[in-house]
């Protein structure tokens, strides 16, 4: 049986990009104000999660 799975690192990074992109889009639409100082910690948290839970999960 072939082992296929989801690369959780890629998954987390993808979600992170979607969230950051959405935040910046809301900022540009003047719906929400992004404070850039929060972006780097969020990026670090996401990278940390990607490293911790990275690898392939069995499905």
């Amino acid at each position, binding site marked *: 049986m072939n082992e296929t799975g989801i690369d959780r690192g890629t*998954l987390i990074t993808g*979600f992170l990009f*979607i969230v950051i*992109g959405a935040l*910046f889009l809301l900022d540009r639409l003047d719906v929400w104000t992004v404070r*850039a100082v929060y972006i780097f910690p969020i990026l670090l948290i996401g990278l940390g999660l990607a490293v911790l839970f990275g690898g392939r999960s069995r499905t």
Partner: protein
Amino acid sequence: MTTQVPPKAASPPRPRVGSSVGQITFGILLLLIGVAWLLQMTDAVRFEWGMVLSIALMVIGAVLVAGSRWSGWGGLIGIGVVLTLILTGMSVVDVRFAGGVGDRTERPVTVSQIQARYDLGMGTQTIDLRDVSFAPGVMNVQAGVGIGTLVVQVPSDVSVQVHFKVGAGDAQILGRRYAGAGLDQTYTSPGYDTAAKKVNLELNVGVGNIEVRQ
């Protein structure tokens, strides 16, 4: 009796479709950004580049989520990180690339010719209001330049209130000089409250300088 253990089957190689899909995604993004840029240069459409890059980042995120079953996404992740850094930088200095590139001079002669807002992505935007005969009341004008210089000239018979923001650079407002990063200040000319003719300026430059002359 000896039993032969069959050799363990080699695990199938992890499919690396990410690099080719990532390449296609990157190509499509470049294509769309190029078309958007061309349309903006021809004044057919006006884009706000922060929005374009934000949407591009979300598209990359969606492709990564959808393709997390495969490997080979290193390039696309790198592009996403670069986009995040660019968007963060644009947010820090509040650069808004709307309105194209180049040097522009607007010289209205009547109040009705004054636009509510003037935008330029990169270059020098000059707004010369000296030929306008302002009626008693308040006139609001907004202007923004992403990277470059914003010059506003106002007639001497009006009182001026200027709210200005400069991400990085300086501002010279009616002879007063302001410098530094993240300027966000308001200048009010003497006698503004009692003046009959008032002009309110809302000026914003990401990187560069603002000049208001009278």
